[in-house]
């Protein structure tokens, strides 16, 4: 027990009280536990705001789509997934996260993630949309995007493994094992979904960085990535000719450099998104008044929803959303600081890195700061699988917070 608490009561905002009744011999005391309502509220605000923006941005396209014909279609679907996600979140938050820290459960999670990825990539369970097999499904019914549960699985597995290894992670042997473990599923994802592979890699590296006490391997890696990025940008055309990169991946770089030149093809989406941001001004056109969602910005309720937020609520609305995310990350920090053990810290770190990287990548894509790649904005973009597993992850974080005992 003593091991689990640091004795540093960090929760200054919460009045610290002693148990009303002292512990009696032979009777298990039930410690009063902390519940991070602030995080819950931030998540609720973001996802409710997401519902509103999904409704606004998809109403027109949904109602003119003869296969749908109902303006609220996307909003309603998201609402049900969100409610299911909230149930999962609350359930997980009340459940001790140490329960999951069993080697066979970890093998199960890792193995299941691999199997589903293999099935998606190499069998007819994988459904192809827009030229990439990103959905797992049966027949023509798509069930979920396997990359999403894989993110949760890797967070769990790495938190468990890193907590087990502690500072042994800096030993080459263990580091190599961990990297190999991550590389296999990430490669399977990479085959069809570059952006999810990047997100997975960042999650894993972020968690390893948190657990490690060394700096230079990560600095070297960051430098290497930066170098590759610069070279890729400079020699994009050349790389196509040599067949190093798939054409559609490099064309994104070309489009990114000069979206106006590809206005009618690849640059359409990002350019229309920029038009939306630019025309929104300081306070936007008002909720529901955007015009770019009327068939101009593709995936308006999805990857590009941030552009619609900018158009309708302006810079003010967009910066409020960013601040909400920053506050959410701050809560993660606080929870991680007070986590009862390394496992808890690493779980929170994994979730934190996951959400943060998606937020940063999504906004960077929408503002054409980086080449276009499909990343959704957590809690706000439309997507059933995404919202379900995000809620599960927040549930884990809340569970870590819930293990914090309040004491003098």
């Amino acid at each position, binding site marked *: 027990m003593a091991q689990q608490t*640091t004795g540093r009561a960090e929760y200054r905002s919460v009045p610290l009280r002693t148990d009303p009744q002292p512990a009696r011999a032979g009777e298990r005391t039930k410690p009063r536990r902390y519940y991070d309502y602030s995080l819950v509220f931030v998540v609720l605000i973001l996802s409710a705001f997401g519902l509103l923006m999904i409704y606004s941005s998809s109403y027109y396209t949904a109602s003119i789509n*003869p*296969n749908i014909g109902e303006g609220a279609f996307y909003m309603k679907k998201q609402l049900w997934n969100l409610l299911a996600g909230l149930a999962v979140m609350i359930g997980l938050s009340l459940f001790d996260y140490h329960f999951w820290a069993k080697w066979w459960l970890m093998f199960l999670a890792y193995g299941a993630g691999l199997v589903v990825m293999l099935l998606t990539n190499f069998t007819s369970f994988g459904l*192809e*949309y*827009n*030229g990439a097999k990103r959905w797992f499904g049966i*027949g*023509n*019914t798509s069930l979920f995007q396997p990359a999403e549960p894989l993110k949760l699985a890797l967070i769990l597995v790495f938190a468990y493994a890193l907590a087990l290894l*502690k*500072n042994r992670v800096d030993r080459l042997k263990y580091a190599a094992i961990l990297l190999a473990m991550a590389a296999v599923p990430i490669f399977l994802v990479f085959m069809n979904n570059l952006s999810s592979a990047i997100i997975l890699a960042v999650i894993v590296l972020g968690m390893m*960085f*948190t*657990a*490690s*006490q060394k700096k230079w391997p990560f600095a070297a890696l960051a430098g290497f990535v930066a170098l590759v990025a610069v070279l890729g940008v400079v020699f994009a055309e050349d790389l196509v000719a040599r067949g190093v990169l798939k054409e559609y991946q490099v064309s994104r770089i070309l489009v990114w450099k000069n979206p106006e030149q590809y206005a009618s*093809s690849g640059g359409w989406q990002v350019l229309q998104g*920029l*038009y*939306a*941001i*630019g*025309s*929104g*001004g*300081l306070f936007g*056109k*008002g909720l529901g*008044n955007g*015009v770019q969602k*009327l*068939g*101009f910005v593709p995936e308006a309720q999805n990857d590009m929803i941030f552009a619609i937020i*900018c158009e309708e609520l*302006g*810079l003010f609305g*967009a*910066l409020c959303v*960013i601040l909400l*995310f*920053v506050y959410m990350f*701050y809560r*993660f*920090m606080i929870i*991680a*600081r007070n986590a009862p053990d*390394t496992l808890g*810290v690493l779980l*929170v*770190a994994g979730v*934190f*890195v996951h959400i*943060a990287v998606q*937020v*940063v990548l999504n*906004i*960077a894509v929408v*503002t054409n*700061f980086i080449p276009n790649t499909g990343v959704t904005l957590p809690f706000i973009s439309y997507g059933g699988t995404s919202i379900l597993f995000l809620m599960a992850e927040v549930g884990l974080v809340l569970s870590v917070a819930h293990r914090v005992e309040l004491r003098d």
Partner: protein
Amino acid sequence: MKRSRQTETPDVRRKRRQRAAKTAYKSNLQRRLAFIFIVVAAALLVLSVVLIRIVRTRGDDYSRTVLTQQNYSSATIAFRRGDITDRNGSLLATSERVYIMILDPSVILSNSAVNEAATLEALNTVYGYDTAELAELIEANPESRYIRYTRDLKEEEKDAFLTYQTEYNARDSKERNGRVSGVWFETEYKRAYPMNDFACTVLGFSGRDASRGNWGLEEYYNDELTGTNGLTYGYINGDGVAERNTVEPVNGHTVVSTIDYSVQTIVEDTIKAFTAERECANLGIIVMDPNNGEILALATDKYYDLNDPTELSAYYTEEEFAALTAEEQAEARAKIWRNFAIADAFEPGSTAKPFTVAAALEEAATDAEHSYECTGAKVFGTTGHEVTVKCNQTHGVVTLEQSLMYSCNSAMMDIVENLGKEKFVNFQTTFGFGRQTGVDLPGETAGIVYTAENMGVTDLATNGFGQNFNVNMVQMAAAFSSLINGGSYYQPHIVKAITNENGEVLKEITPTLVRRTVSEETCNFIKEALLATVQDGTGAEAAIEGYEIGGKTGTAQKHPRSAKKYVTSFVGFAPADDPKVLVYVVIDDLTLLEDERISTKYAIELERTVMEKILPYLGVPNANPVVAPVLPMDPDQPQAEQVPDDGILSGDDDDGAYLTQESDEE
């Protein structure tokens, strides 16, 4: 002691070291997490700055672009061109709602083209379109969002596809292959003429462009029939907020014609039966209500399918037509499409004689008791420049009434000589000759008449019996109506009312009394004389058992006189004392059979056929409803036999000219 201390110390140290390492490890975790937080916050700060920069530097630019783009999203909503009906509401021209099929390849090929096969199969199943051809079109335009594929789909055809699509897409996913998608329908209107060539000369036609009518009522009443297109568009209001607005289209008005479906049918059938047997350059029949100028029927021998006006196979074979130059083709079409009854002027011939008589009566240049002597010809001009104008025969002494009954040219020449050219010309104006009647059809000719200044003696003489001036059929029918209705000249018209699409009357076109032409007395004299013409004179063949028919024949020689081409005509009305209907028949240049002489009998025959059928329909009572024996022509009436018509050649064996200018040749 020392030893025990030494054994104790490493243990305590190890524990202490372990605890220190653990604390160090934990604080390292926190530091790293804080580092990540700072990196993320910094990234978001950078992105916020990027956002602000986009808005600040490109805001105006992008706002404008967004506005410009919005203009593309405006779409017109087609108006519906108004109907044309007959006087009883039968649809003569209407606009049918049709659908255009739009293919959207970008949608069909989306989702990795899983929907393509299903969509093509649907189009093949419902419409029998060639799948390979469709696939080629779609795959050649993968970015396109709008391909007009089929026009003029009927509602059932559109619904057939939508039903198929709904049914197919609702199936269990295992029983289908993707979804049917990317096929839309747009609404359009197509002009339709339910009775094809019926009343084509009156109606004219409108094509793909619903705001344009060609010929006939479609052209004349184009402004009424045409509506205003609606529009749906996006705009940015004063607060910089995008709004979407729809302006509903305004549909065209309905034109209610004075044409009576039954009368028009009778007239057209009569013409078609005649032209099946005989050939002529033109043939026109007008049926008019003499008491208000309403045209009940108007038809010529030129008819064409209004639904396919360029299809002229009844007149030309395909090779013949293809051999023509573009100009000749246009001319050939115009020849069929133009309305002979209003667009062509011709010399009326003897049907003009009642006007001469009426004018003289009005000016007291003659009276009912006056007699004229016909010697078969009259000579004008000075010696050496004589011009002889012949009568069709030598009538001897004729009364004023007989001059009309037997159509005596000499008597008319005497009458106009007495009347004088000024008064004659004035009366031509009063009767509306030489001016457009203002009938509500496009392309009316004014005709050609002399003025008092340029009219010579022989011009006046020949004008007196209907030669040497040109009129159109509507002018004649309208003027003649005033002669028999008590002297009221009504503007001839062919449209009764304009209503909105729900049938509410917007504008009623009431008879316009333009002027008084002749007195009641004159009118009565003319009616009696023309009744006598049918009973005992040149119009005997027009008689119908049980009815009192009045009428006047006409034969005019066309220019050039040597071509021996004639316009024969007959104008009849019934009942003679109080006319309810007037029928005017004109046959232009009938091709004569071998050994046949020019005669008005065909014009009379056509008039009688029409009159016989429409009188019962119009409710004109028959005096002898019981079948009575037809009165045989009195054999003692030599004139009736010898002068079956007033053809100026009758009984003549000369070269056919009523006019000989001997002096010029000498």
